[in-house]
Protein backbone atom coordinates (compact mmCIF):
# COMPACT_ATOMS: atom_id res chain seq x y z
CA UNK A 1 0.00 0.00 0.00
CA UNK A 2 1.28 3.45 -0.86
CA UNK A 3 -1.20 5.35 1.23
CA UNK A 4 -0.19 8.56 2.90
CA UNK A 5 -1.93 9.79 6.01
CA UNK A 6 -3.97 12.29 4.05
CA UNK A 7 -5.20 9.82 1.50
CA UNK A 8 -5.96 6.91 3.72
CA UNK A 9 -9.51 7.91 4.60
CA UNK A 10 -10.46 7.84 0.95
CA UNK A 11 -9.25 4.34 0.33
CA UNK A 12 -11.76 1.53 0.80
CA UNK A 13 -11.15 -0.34 4.02
CA UNK A 14 -9.11 -3.42 3.34
CA UNK A 15 -10.55 -6.55 4.88
CA UNK A 16 -7.72 -8.95 5.66
CA UNK A 17 -8.02 -12.19 3.72
CA UNK A 18 -9.13 -15.04 5.94
CA UNK A 19 -6.54 -17.74 6.12
CA UNK A 20 -7.92 -21.26 5.99
CA UNK A 21 -8.10 -24.48 4.09
CA UNK A 22 -8.87 -22.78 0.79
CA UNK A 23 -12.01 -21.54 -0.89
CA UNK A 24 -13.65 -24.92 -1.57
CA UNK A 25 -15.40 -26.39 1.40
CA UNK A 26 -15.38 -24.14 4.44
CA UNK A 27 -18.29 -25.20 6.61
CA UNK A 28 -19.88 -22.55 8.74
CA UNK A 29 -19.89 -24.05 12.21
CA UNK A 30 -22.32 -21.56 13.75
CA UNK A 31 -24.82 -22.20 10.98
CA UNK A 32 -24.53 -25.96 11.37
CA UNK A 33 -25.10 -25.72 15.11
CA UNK A 34 -28.10 -23.41 14.71
CA UNK A 35 -29.58 -25.62 11.98
CA UNK A 36 -29.19 -28.73 14.12
CA UNK A 37 -30.91 -26.99 17.04
CA UNK A 38 -33.82 -25.90 14.85
CA UNK A 39 -34.25 -29.43 13.51
CA UNK A 40 -34.09 -30.62 17.11
CA UNK A 41 -36.74 -28.14 18.19
CA UNK A 42 -38.95 -29.38 15.34
CA UNK A 43 -38.45 -33.01 16.37
CA UNK A 44 -39.23 -32.18 19.98
CA UNK A 45 -42.39 -30.36 18.97
CA UNK A 46 -43.56 -33.25 16.82
CA UNK A 47 -42.59 -36.15 19.07
CA UNK A 48 -43.72 -34.91 22.45
CA UNK A 49 -47.54 -34.93 22.58
CA UNK A 50 -49.27 -31.69 23.55
CA UNK A 51 -50.85 -31.50 26.98
CA UNK A 52 -53.87 -29.96 25.34
CA UNK A 53 -54.92 -30.33 21.74
CA UNK A 54 -53.34 -27.36 20.05
CA UNK A 55 -53.88 -26.83 16.36
CA UNK A 56 -50.93 -26.51 13.99
CA UNK A 57 -48.45 -28.36 16.19
CA UNK A 58 -47.37 -30.46 13.23
CA UNK A 59 -47.10 -27.46 10.98
CA UNK A 60 -44.93 -25.70 13.54
CA UNK A 61 -42.71 -28.76 13.84
CA UNK A 62 -42.42 -28.98 10.06
CA UNK A 63 -41.56 -25.28 9.72
CA UNK A 64 -38.86 -25.57 12.39
CA UNK A 65 -37.40 -28.66 10.78
CA UNK A 66 -37.40 -27.22 7.27
CA UNK A 67 -35.81 -23.97 8.47
CA UNK A 68 -33.20 -25.98 10.37
CA UNK A 69 -32.46 -28.13 7.34
CA UNK A 70 -31.92 -25.05 5.18
CA UNK A 71 -29.57 -23.64 7.78
CA UNK A 72 -27.62 -26.89 7.81
CA UNK A 73 -27.38 -26.66 4.02
CA UNK A 74 -26.04 -23.12 4.18
CA UNK A 75 -23.71 -24.22 6.98
CA UNK A 76 -22.27 -26.98 4.82
CA UNK A 77 -21.74 -24.80 1.77
CA UNK A 78 -20.40 -21.95 3.87
CA UNK A 79 -19.13 -18.94 1.95
CA UNK A 80 -20.10 -20.51 -1.36
CA UNK A 81 -23.71 -19.40 -0.83
CA UNK A 82 -22.45 -15.84 -1.29
CA UNK A 83 -24.71 -13.01 -0.24
CA UNK A 84 -26.99 -15.21 1.86
CA UNK A 85 -24.03 -16.36 3.92
CA UNK A 86 -22.78 -12.80 4.32
CA UNK A 87 -26.17 -11.79 5.73
CA UNK A 88 -26.48 -14.78 8.03
CA UNK A 89 -22.98 -15.23 9.37
CA UNK A 90 -23.34 -12.70 12.18
CA UNK A 91 -26.72 -14.10 13.15
CA UNK A 92 -25.58 -17.56 14.25
CA UNK A 93 -25.69 -16.77 18.01
CA UNK A 94 -29.16 -15.28 17.63
CA UNK A 95 -30.40 -18.27 15.62
CA UNK A 96 -29.06 -20.63 18.28
CA UNK A 97 -30.63 -18.73 21.17
CA UNK A 98 -33.94 -18.40 19.33
CA UNK A 99 -34.11 -22.14 18.69
CA UNK A 100 -33.46 -22.85 22.36
CA UNK A 101 -35.96 -20.21 23.52
CA UNK A 102 -38.63 -21.55 21.18
CA UNK A 103 -38.07 -25.08 22.46
CA UNK A 104 -38.29 -23.98 26.10
CA UNK A 105 -41.43 -21.98 25.36
CA UNK A 106 -43.00 -24.89 23.50
CA UNK A 107 -42.24 -27.34 26.32
CA UNK A 108 -43.35 -25.04 29.10
CA UNK A 109 -46.65 -24.00 27.54
CA UNK A 110 -47.79 -26.67 25.07
CA UNK A 111 -46.23 -29.82 26.47
CA UNK A 112 -46.23 -29.35 30.25
CA UNK A 113 -48.92 -26.68 30.60
CA UNK A 114 -46.83 -24.98 33.29
CA UNK A 115 -48.05 -21.41 32.75
CA UNK A 116 -51.53 -20.09 33.50
CA UNK A 117 -53.96 -20.16 30.59
CA UNK A 118 -55.28 -18.31 28.70
CA UNK A 119 -52.71 -15.58 29.28
CA UNK A 120 -49.91 -17.65 27.80
CA UNK A 121 -50.05 -19.10 24.34
CA UNK A 122 -47.64 -21.61 22.78
CA UNK A 123 -45.77 -20.88 19.53
CA UNK A 124 -48.25 -22.86 17.44
CA UNK A 125 -51.02 -20.50 18.58
CA UNK A 126 -49.19 -17.65 16.79
CA UNK A 127 -49.07 -19.83 13.71
CA UNK A 128 -52.77 -20.48 14.07
CA UNK A 129 -53.55 -16.76 14.23
CA UNK A 130 -51.39 -15.92 11.22
CA UNK A 131 -52.80 -18.79 9.16
CA UNK A 132 -56.47 -18.57 10.14
CA UNK A 133 -56.86 -14.84 10.81
CA UNK A 134 -54.00 -13.63 8.64
CA UNK A 135 -56.22 -11.85 6.16
CA UNK A 136 -57.86 -9.68 8.77
CA UNK A 137 -54.54 -9.04 10.47
CA UNK A 138 -53.04 -7.96 7.17
CA UNK A 139 -55.99 -5.65 6.53
CA UNK A 140 -55.53 -4.14 9.97
CA UNK A 141 -51.80 -3.68 9.44
CA UNK A 142 -52.55 -2.05 6.11
CA UNK A 143 -55.15 0.29 7.68
CA UNK A 144 -52.72 1.25 10.44
CA UNK A 145 -49.98 1.86 7.93
CA UNK A 146 -52.21 4.11 5.81
CA UNK A 147 -53.33 6.17 8.77
CA UNK A 148 -49.79 6.46 10.04
CA UNK A 149 -48.35 7.36 6.66
CA UNK A 150 -50.85 10.13 5.97
CA UNK A 151 -50.66 11.59 9.50
CA UNK A 152 -46.91 11.34 9.80
CA UNK A 153 -46.14 12.80 6.39
CA UNK A 154 -48.49 15.74 6.98
CA UNK A 155 -46.99 16.27 10.43
CA UNK A 156 -43.41 16.00 9.23
CA UNK A 157 -43.94 18.51 6.44
CA UNK A 158 -45.82 20.92 8.72
CA UNK A 159 -43.28 20.56 11.53
CA UNK A 160 -40.34 21.02 9.21
CA UNK A 161 -41.84 24.11 7.61
CA UNK A 162 -42.72 25.59 11.00
CA UNK A 163 -39.28 24.80 12.38
CA UNK A 164 -37.48 26.45 9.47
CA UNK A 165 -39.73 29.49 9.65
CA UNK A 166 -39.29 29.92 13.41
CA UNK A 167 -35.56 29.32 13.22
CA UNK A 168 -35.09 31.74 10.35
CA UNK A 169 -37.51 34.61 10.80
CA UNK A 170 -37.70 36.76 13.89
CA UNK A 171 -41.26 37.74 13.14
CA UNK A 172 -42.40 34.13 12.89
CA UNK A 173 -40.41 33.25 16.02
CA UNK A 174 -42.12 36.06 17.93
CA UNK A 175 -45.54 34.50 17.34
CA UNK A 176 -44.59 30.87 16.89
CA UNK A 177 -42.27 30.36 19.84
CA UNK A 178 -44.85 31.00 22.60
CA UNK A 179 -47.39 28.81 20.83
CA UNK A 180 -44.89 26.00 20.48
CA UNK A 181 -43.93 26.35 24.13
CA UNK A 182 -47.52 26.12 25.22
CA UNK A 183 -48.72 23.36 22.91
CA UNK A 184 -45.51 21.38 22.52
CA UNK A 185 -45.39 19.64 25.89
CA UNK A 186 -49.09 18.72 25.80
CA UNK A 187 -49.49 15.00 25.00
CA UNK A 188 -51.27 14.75 21.67
CA UNK A 189 -53.73 12.28 23.17
CA UNK A 190 -55.04 15.07 25.39
CA UNK A 191 -56.64 16.48 22.24
CA UNK A 192 -58.50 13.25 21.67
CA UNK A 193 -61.96 14.35 22.86
CA UNK A 194 -61.80 17.64 20.98
CA UNK A 195 -60.43 16.00 17.85
CA UNK A 196 -63.13 13.35 17.66
CA UNK A 197 -65.74 16.02 18.24
CA UNK A 198 -64.34 18.60 15.80
CA UNK A 199 -63.46 16.38 12.87
CA UNK A 200 -66.05 14.86 10.53
CA UNK A 201 -64.71 11.32 10.91
CA UNK A 202 -62.67 9.42 13.43
CA UNK A 203 -60.16 8.74 10.64
CA UNK A 204 -59.53 12.42 9.94
CA UNK A 205 -59.40 13.11 13.68
CA UNK A 206 -56.74 10.44 14.02
CA UNK A 207 -54.78 11.85 11.11
CA UNK A 208 -54.83 15.21 12.85
CA UNK A 209 -53.65 13.74 16.15
CA UNK A 210 -50.84 11.78 14.55
CA UNK A 211 -49.80 14.79 12.50
CA UNK A 212 -49.79 16.98 15.59
CA UNK A 213 -47.81 14.47 17.64
CA UNK A 214 -45.15 14.06 14.98
CA UNK A 215 -45.03 17.71 13.96
CA UNK A 216 -43.94 19.01 17.36
CA UNK A 217 -40.62 17.20 17.77
CA UNK A 218 -39.86 17.81 14.11
CA UNK A 219 -40.59 21.53 14.52
CA UNK A 220 -38.56 21.90 17.72
CA UNK A 221 -35.51 20.08 16.39
CA UNK A 222 -35.62 21.72 12.98
CA UNK A 223 -35.85 25.06 14.71
CA UNK A 224 -32.92 24.33 16.99
CA UNK A 225 -30.96 23.03 14.01
CA UNK A 226 -31.59 26.15 11.96
CA UNK A 227 -30.94 28.48 14.88
CA UNK A 228 -27.69 26.71 15.70
CA UNK A 229 -26.11 26.95 12.26
CA UNK A 230 -22.54 28.24 12.47
CA UNK A 231 -22.81 31.89 11.51
CA UNK A 232 -19.54 31.61 9.58
CA UNK A 233 -21.44 29.56 6.98
CA UNK A 234 -23.73 32.52 6.39
CA UNK A 235 -20.76 34.92 6.21
CA UNK A 236 -19.11 32.71 3.59
CA UNK A 237 -22.26 32.37 1.54
CA UNK A 238 -23.06 36.08 1.74
CA UNK A 239 -19.63 37.13 0.52
CA UNK A 240 -20.02 34.63 -2.33
CA UNK A 241 -23.14 36.45 -3.45
CA UNK A 242 -25.91 34.34 -1.87
CA UNK A 243 -29.48 35.64 -1.81
CA UNK A 244 -31.64 35.15 1.31
CA UNK A 245 -33.38 32.33 -0.51
CA UNK A 246 -30.03 30.62 -1.10
CA UNK A 247 -29.13 31.12 2.56
CA UNK A 248 -32.29 29.31 3.67
CA UNK A 249 -32.40 26.52 1.11
CA UNK A 250 -28.70 25.86 0.56
CA UNK A 251 -27.15 26.80 3.91
CA UNK A 252 -29.62 26.74 6.81
CA UNK A 253 -31.60 23.66 5.82
CA UNK A 254 -28.72 21.36 4.86
CA UNK A 255 -26.79 22.40 7.95
CA UNK A 256 -29.84 21.63 10.11
CA UNK A 257 -30.52 18.19 8.58
CA UNK A 258 -28.82 16.13 11.31
CA UNK A 259 -31.14 17.76 13.85
CA UNK A 260 -34.12 17.40 11.55
CA UNK A 261 -33.60 13.65 11.39
CA UNK A 262 -33.50 13.38 15.18
CA UNK A 263 -36.85 15.22 15.16
CA UNK A 264 -38.24 12.96 12.44
CA UNK A 265 -37.26 9.91 14.48
CA UNK A 266 -38.84 11.25 17.66
CA UNK A 267 -41.92 12.29 15.71
CA UNK A 268 -42.26 8.80 14.28
CA UNK A 269 -42.14 7.26 17.75
CA UNK A 270 -44.78 9.71 18.95
CA UNK A 271 -46.89 8.86 15.92
CA UNK A 272 -46.83 5.15 16.82
CA UNK A 273 -48.19 5.70 20.29
CA UNK A 274 -50.88 8.10 19.12
CA UNK A 275 -51.83 5.70 16.34
CA UNK A 276 -52.48 2.85 18.74
CA UNK A 277 -54.45 5.01 21.14
CA UNK A 278 -56.53 6.54 18.36
CA UNK A 279 -57.33 3.12 16.94
CA UNK A 280 -58.26 1.77 20.35
CA UNK A 281 -60.59 4.66 21.06
CA UNK A 282 -62.11 5.74 17.80
CA UNK A 283 -61.13 4.14 14.52
CA UNK A 284 -62.80 0.82 13.76
CA UNK A 285 -59.80 -0.67 11.97
CA UNK A 286 -56.10 -1.13 12.38
CA UNK A 287 -53.79 -2.97 14.71
CA UNK A 288 -54.76 -0.89 17.73
CA UNK A 289 -58.37 -1.81 17.16
CA UNK A 290 -57.39 -5.47 16.67
CA UNK A 291 -55.49 -5.45 19.96
CA UNK A 292 -58.48 -3.97 21.73
CA UNK A 293 -60.82 -6.48 20.12
CA UNK A 294 -58.58 -9.43 20.98
CA UNK A 295 -58.34 -8.34 24.57
CA UNK A 296 -62.13 -7.99 24.78
CA UNK A 297 -62.54 -11.61 23.68
CA UNK A 298 -59.65 -12.82 25.83
CA UNK A 299 -58.02 -13.97 22.61
CA UNK A 300 -54.55 -13.57 23.97
CA UNK A 301 -52.81 -15.40 21.17
CA UNK A 302 -54.35 -12.94 18.69
CA UNK A 303 -53.18 -10.10 20.86
CA UNK A 304 -49.60 -11.29 20.99
CA UNK A 305 -49.63 -12.01 17.29
CA UNK A 306 -50.92 -8.50 16.55
CA UNK A 307 -48.35 -7.02 18.92
CA UNK A 308 -45.60 -8.79 17.03
CA UNK A 309 -46.92 -7.43 13.73
CA UNK A 310 -47.08 -3.95 15.22
CA UNK A 311 -43.50 -4.22 16.44
CA UNK A 312 -42.37 -5.35 13.00
CA UNK A 313 -44.27 -2.52 11.28
CA UNK A 314 -42.80 0.10 13.63
CA UNK A 315 -39.30 -1.27 13.41
CA UNK A 316 -39.48 -1.43 9.62
CA UNK A 317 -40.65 2.16 9.41
CA UNK A 318 -37.86 3.35 11.69
CA UNK A 319 -35.45 1.31 9.58
CA UNK A 320 -36.78 3.01 6.46
CA UNK A 321 -36.32 6.43 8.03
CA UNK A 322 -32.74 5.55 8.94
CA UNK A 323 -32.10 4.41 5.38
CA UNK A 324 -33.30 7.78 4.08
CA UNK A 325 -31.14 9.54 6.64
CA UNK A 326 -28.08 7.51 5.65
CA UNK A 327 -28.55 8.69 2.09
CA UNK A 328 -29.17 12.32 2.98
CA UNK A 329 -26.41 12.49 5.57
CA UNK A 330 -23.71 10.52 3.76
CA UNK A 331 -21.41 13.40 4.52
CA UNK A 332 -21.56 12.77 8.26
CA UNK A 333 -19.22 10.28 9.81
CA UNK A 334 -20.00 7.92 12.64
CA UNK A 335 -23.74 7.57 12.03
CA UNK A 336 -25.74 5.26 14.29
CA UNK A 337 -26.99 2.24 12.35
CA UNK A 338 -30.55 0.93 12.87
Amino acid at each position, binding site marked *: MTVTGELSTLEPAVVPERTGTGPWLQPWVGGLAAGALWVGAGALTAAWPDADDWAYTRELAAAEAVGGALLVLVGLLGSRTGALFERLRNLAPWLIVLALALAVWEVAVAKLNLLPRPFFAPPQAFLEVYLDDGRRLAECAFASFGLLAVGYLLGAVAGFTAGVAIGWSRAVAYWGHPLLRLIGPLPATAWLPIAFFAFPSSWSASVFLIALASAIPVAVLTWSGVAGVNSAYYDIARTL*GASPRFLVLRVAIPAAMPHVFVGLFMGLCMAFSVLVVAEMVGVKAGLGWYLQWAQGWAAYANMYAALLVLALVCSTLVGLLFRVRDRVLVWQKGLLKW
Partner: protein
Amino acid sequence: MVAAAPLRRDPEPVVGLALEVAGVDHRFDLHGEPLPVLEQISFRVEPGEFVAVLGPSGCGKSTLLRLVAGLEPPTTGRLLADGAAIVGPDPSRLMVFQDPTLFPWRTVRDNVALGLEARGLMRGERHRIQKALGLVGLGAFAGAYPHQLSGGMAQRAALARALVNDPRLLILDEPLGKLDSLTRLGMQGELVGLWRRAGFTALLVTHDIEEALVMATRVLVLGPRPARLVADLPVERAYPRHRDDPHLVALRHRILELLGLAATW
Protein backbone atom coordinates in the same frame (compact mmCIF):
# COMPACT_ATOMS: atom_id res chain seq x y z
CA MET B 1 4.70 37.57 -26.03
CA VAL B 2 2.28 39.24 -28.40
CA ALA B 3 1.78 36.00 -30.30
CA ALA B 4 0.93 34.16 -27.09
CA ALA B 5 -1.73 36.60 -26.01
CA PRO B 6 -4.69 35.10 -27.95
CA LEU B 7 -4.06 31.77 -26.24
CA ARG B 8 -5.19 33.10 -22.88
CA ARG B 9 -8.27 31.31 -21.59
CA ASP B 10 -9.54 34.22 -19.53
CA PRO B 11 -10.56 37.11 -21.75
CA GLU B 12 -9.57 39.72 -19.18
CA PRO B 13 -7.07 39.17 -16.37
CA VAL B 14 -8.16 40.06 -12.87
CA VAL B 15 -7.39 43.63 -11.96
CA GLY B 16 -6.67 44.17 -8.30
CA LEU B 17 -8.97 46.38 -6.37
CA ALA B 18 -7.93 49.63 -4.67
CA LEU B 19 -9.00 49.72 -1.05
CA GLU B 20 -9.30 52.81 1.03
CA VAL B 21 -9.98 52.82 4.75
CA ALA B 22 -10.64 56.35 5.98
CA GLY B 23 -10.99 57.30 9.64
CA VAL B 24 -12.64 54.05 10.71
CA ASP B 25 -13.74 53.62 14.31
CA HIS B 26 -15.51 50.49 15.45
CA ARG B 27 -17.19 49.63 18.72
CA PHE B 28 -18.96 46.50 19.87
CA ASP B 29 -21.71 46.36 22.40
CA LEU B 30 -20.55 44.09 25.20
CA HIS B 31 -23.19 43.55 27.90
CA GLY B 32 -24.52 47.04 27.26
CA GLU B 33 -21.07 48.63 27.54
CA PRO B 34 -19.44 49.97 24.40
CA LEU B 35 -16.22 48.11 23.63
CA PRO B 36 -13.99 50.21 21.37
CA VAL B 37 -12.05 47.95 19.04
CA LEU B 38 -10.74 50.08 16.17
CA GLU B 39 -9.74 53.72 16.50
CA GLN B 40 -9.03 56.10 13.65
CA ILE B 41 -7.78 53.50 11.22
CA SER B 42 -6.79 54.99 7.87
CA PHE B 43 -4.76 53.43 5.11
CA ARG B 44 -4.84 52.83 1.39
CA VAL B 45 -4.05 49.66 -0.53
CA GLU B 46 -3.11 50.05 -4.18
CA PRO B 47 -4.34 47.58 -6.80
CA GLY B 48 -2.26 44.42 -6.79
CA GLU B 49 -0.53 45.09 -3.47
CA PHE B 50 -0.11 42.38 -0.85
CA VAL B 51 -0.62 43.99 2.54
CA ALA B 52 -0.11 42.09 5.79
CA VAL B 53 -1.65 43.23 9.07
CA LEU B 54 0.08 42.37 12.34
CA GLY B 55 -1.09 43.13 15.84
CA PRO B 56 -1.54 41.69 19.31
CA SER B 57 -4.19 39.03 19.77
CA GLY B 58 -7.68 40.46 20.27
CA CYS B 59 -6.74 43.92 19.02
CA GLY B 60 -9.33 43.97 16.26
CA LYS B 61 -7.64 42.52 13.17
CA SER B 62 -10.50 40.16 12.32
CA THR B 63 -12.95 42.97 12.92
CA LEU B 64 -11.11 45.15 10.43
CA LEU B 65 -11.28 42.39 7.83
CA ARG B 66 -15.03 41.90 8.41
CA LEU B 67 -15.53 45.59 7.76
CA VAL B 68 -13.52 45.36 4.55
CA ALA B 69 -15.53 42.31 3.48
CA GLY B 70 -18.71 44.30 4.09
CA LEU B 71 -20.05 41.80 6.63
CA GLU B 72 -20.54 44.63 9.13
CA PRO B 73 -20.72 48.40 8.75
CA PRO B 74 -18.15 50.46 10.69
CA THR B 75 -19.39 52.53 13.62
CA THR B 76 -17.88 55.62 12.00
CA GLY B 77 -15.59 56.24 9.06
CA ARG B 78 -15.62 55.05 5.49
CA LEU B 79 -14.37 52.07 3.56
CA LEU B 80 -14.05 52.40 -0.20
CA ALA B 81 -13.46 49.81 -2.89
CA ASP B 82 -12.20 51.50 -6.07
CA GLY B 83 -13.65 54.72 -4.71
CA ALA B 84 -17.15 53.31 -4.10
CA ALA B 85 -18.42 52.90 -0.54
CA ILE B 86 -18.51 49.31 0.76
CA VAL B 87 -22.09 48.75 1.88
CA GLY B 88 -22.27 44.96 1.97
CA PRO B 89 -20.52 41.75 1.02
CA ASP B 90 -19.62 41.28 -2.62
CA PRO B 91 -18.04 38.42 -4.57
CA SER B 92 -15.26 40.76 -5.71
CA ARG B 93 -14.03 40.84 -2.10
CA LEU B 94 -13.71 37.31 -0.75
CA MET B 95 -12.53 36.00 2.56
CA VAL B 96 -10.60 32.94 3.70
CA PHE B 97 -10.75 32.30 7.44
CA GLN B 98 -8.50 30.51 9.87
CA ASP B 99 -11.06 27.71 9.93
CA PRO B 100 -11.67 26.51 6.40
CA THR B 101 -15.43 26.39 7.21
CA LEU B 102 -16.15 24.20 4.24
CA PHE B 103 -19.79 23.13 4.15
CA PRO B 104 -19.51 19.58 5.49
CA TRP B 105 -22.55 18.39 3.55
CA ARG B 106 -20.99 19.30 0.22
CA THR B 107 -18.17 17.56 -1.58
CA VAL B 108 -15.04 19.58 -2.28
CA ARG B 109 -16.28 20.20 -5.82
CA ASP B 110 -19.66 21.46 -4.61
CA ASN B 111 -18.00 23.66 -2.01
CA VAL B 112 -15.93 25.30 -4.69
CA ALA B 113 -19.09 25.66 -6.78
CA LEU B 114 -20.84 27.67 -4.06
CA GLY B 115 -20.13 31.12 -5.43
CA LEU B 116 -21.06 30.20 -9.00
CA GLU B 117 -24.25 28.53 -7.76
CA ALA B 118 -25.21 31.44 -5.57
CA ARG B 119 -24.88 33.83 -8.49
CA GLY B 120 -26.52 31.51 -11.01
CA LEU B 121 -23.37 31.07 -13.09
CA MET B 122 -23.15 27.28 -13.02
CA ARG B 123 -24.30 26.87 -16.62
CA GLY B 124 -21.55 28.84 -18.29
CA GLU B 125 -18.71 28.66 -15.80
CA ARG B 126 -18.78 25.11 -14.48
CA HIS B 127 -15.41 24.33 -16.09
CA ARG B 128 -13.73 26.80 -13.77
CA ILE B 129 -14.31 24.56 -10.76
CA GLN B 130 -11.91 21.86 -11.87
CA LYS B 131 -9.44 24.54 -12.89
CA ALA B 132 -9.56 26.15 -9.44
CA LEU B 133 -9.13 22.76 -7.80
CA GLY B 134 -6.15 22.08 -10.00
CA LEU B 135 -4.69 25.44 -9.08
CA VAL B 136 -4.58 24.46 -5.40
CA GLY B 137 -3.54 20.87 -6.12
CA LEU B 138 -6.83 19.22 -5.18
CA GLY B 139 -7.86 17.99 -8.61
CA ALA B 140 -8.06 14.39 -7.42
CA PHE B 141 -10.22 15.22 -4.42
CA ALA B 142 -13.20 16.84 -6.09
CA GLY B 143 -15.53 14.10 -4.87
CA ALA B 144 -14.26 13.93 -1.28
CA TYR B 145 -16.19 15.26 1.69
CA PRO B 146 -14.52 17.81 3.97
CA HIS B 147 -14.13 15.36 6.85
CA GLN B 148 -11.94 13.28 4.59
CA LEU B 149 -9.41 16.08 4.12
CA SER B 150 -6.40 17.05 6.20
CA GLY B 151 -6.18 20.58 7.59
CA GLY B 152 -3.93 21.76 4.78
CA MET B 153 -6.14 20.25 2.08
CA ALA B 154 -9.26 21.77 3.62
CA GLN B 155 -7.61 25.18 3.63
CA ARG B 156 -6.61 24.73 0.00
CA ALA B 157 -10.22 23.87 -0.82
CA ALA B 158 -11.35 27.04 0.95
CA LEU B 159 -8.85 28.97 -1.14
CA ALA B 160 -10.19 27.38 -4.34
CA ARG B 161 -13.74 28.26 -3.24
CA ALA B 162 -12.67 31.92 -3.22
CA LEU B 163 -10.38 31.88 -6.26
CA VAL B 164 -12.94 30.31 -8.60
CA ASN B 165 -14.85 33.60 -8.41
CA ASP B 166 -11.88 35.67 -9.59
CA PRO B 167 -11.94 37.94 -6.53
CA ARG B 168 -10.30 41.31 -6.98
CA LEU B 169 -9.48 41.52 -3.29
CA LEU B 170 -8.59 38.39 -1.33
CA ILE B 171 -9.02 38.85 2.40
CA LEU B 172 -7.07 36.30 4.43
CA ASP B 173 -7.70 36.01 8.18
CA GLU B 174 -4.83 33.92 9.57
CA PRO B 175 -5.46 31.38 6.82
CA LEU B 176 -2.43 29.30 7.75
CA GLY B 177 -2.74 29.75 11.51
CA LYS B 178 -3.90 26.22 12.26
CA LEU B 179 -1.58 24.34 9.95
CA ASP B 180 1.55 22.51 11.01
CA SER B 181 4.72 24.45 10.34
CA LEU B 182 5.89 22.46 7.33
CA THR B 183 2.54 22.70 5.55
CA ARG B 184 2.50 26.36 6.43
CA LEU B 185 5.86 27.09 4.82
CA GLY B 186 4.74 25.34 1.66
CA MET B 187 1.44 27.17 1.48
CA GLN B 188 3.06 30.57 2.06
CA GLY B 189 4.95 30.05 -1.17
CA GLU B 190 1.85 28.79 -2.98
CA LEU B 191 -0.23 31.77 -1.90
CA VAL B 192 2.39 34.24 -3.06
CA GLY B 193 2.60 32.36 -6.35
CA LEU B 194 -1.17 32.53 -6.84
CA TRP B 195 -1.23 36.21 -6.01
CA ARG B 196 1.60 37.02 -8.42
CA ARG B 197 -0.03 35.10 -11.25
CA ALA B 198 -3.63 36.22 -10.71
CA GLY B 199 -3.13 39.91 -10.00
CA PHE B 200 -5.66 40.37 -7.19
CA THR B 201 -5.03 42.64 -4.21
CA ALA B 202 -4.38 40.72 -0.99
CA LEU B 203 -5.00 41.71 2.61
CA LEU B 204 -3.56 39.20 5.05
CA VAL B 205 -3.90 39.06 8.81
CA THR B 206 -1.33 36.87 10.49
CA HIS B 207 0.25 36.47 13.91
CA ASP B 208 3.48 35.27 12.36
CA ILE B 209 5.87 38.19 11.69
CA GLU B 210 8.09 36.10 9.47
CA GLU B 211 5.08 35.03 7.40
CA ALA B 212 4.12 38.67 6.89
CA LEU B 213 7.66 39.60 5.84
CA VAL B 214 8.08 36.69 3.44
CA MET B 215 4.75 37.23 1.73
CA ALA B 216 3.69 40.88 1.79
CA THR B 217 4.75 43.99 -0.08
CA ARG B 218 3.76 46.06 2.94
CA VAL B 219 3.17 45.38 6.61
CA LEU B 220 0.70 47.35 8.77
CA VAL B 221 1.23 47.08 12.51
CA LEU B 222 -1.71 47.66 14.86
CA GLY B 223 -1.42 48.49 18.54
CA PRO B 224 -3.30 46.82 21.40
CA ARG B 225 -7.10 47.25 21.59
CA PRO B 226 -8.54 49.74 20.80
CA ALA B 227 -6.27 49.31 17.80
CA ARG B 228 -4.57 52.22 16.09
CA LEU B 229 -2.22 51.98 13.18
CA VAL B 230 1.27 52.21 14.69
CA ALA B 231 3.40 51.55 11.60
CA ASP B 232 3.18 51.10 7.85
CA LEU B 233 6.34 49.36 6.63
CA PRO B 234 7.12 48.59 2.99
CA VAL B 235 9.00 45.33 2.38
CA GLU B 236 11.25 46.12 -0.56
CA ARG B 237 12.45 42.71 -1.64
CA ALA B 238 11.82 40.61 -4.74
CA TYR B 239 10.29 37.11 -4.53
CA PRO B 240 11.18 34.48 -3.59
CA ARG B 241 12.48 35.91 -0.36
CA HIS B 242 14.93 34.45 2.09
CA ARG B 243 14.01 34.41 5.70
CA ASP B 244 17.53 35.40 6.79
CA ASP B 245 17.72 38.37 4.38
CA PRO B 246 19.24 41.21 6.50
CA HIS B 247 16.49 43.63 5.41
CA LEU B 248 13.79 41.24 6.62
CA VAL B 249 15.67 40.53 9.84
CA ALA B 250 15.90 44.24 10.54
CA LEU B 251 12.20 44.69 9.82
CA ARG B 252 11.38 41.81 12.09
CA HIS B 253 13.32 43.43 14.91
CA ARG B 254 11.57 46.71 14.28
CA ILE B 255 8.11 45.08 14.39
CA LEU B 256 8.90 43.20 17.60
CA GLU B 257 9.86 46.53 19.13
CA LEU B 258 6.63 48.10 17.95
CA LEU B 259 4.66 45.25 19.50
CA GLY B 260 6.55 45.72 22.76
CA LEU B 261 8.30 42.37 22.47
CA ALA B 262 11.86 43.54 21.82
CA ALA B 263 13.08 41.75 24.93
CA THR B 264 12.32 38.38 23.35
CA TRP B 265 14.65 39.08 20.43
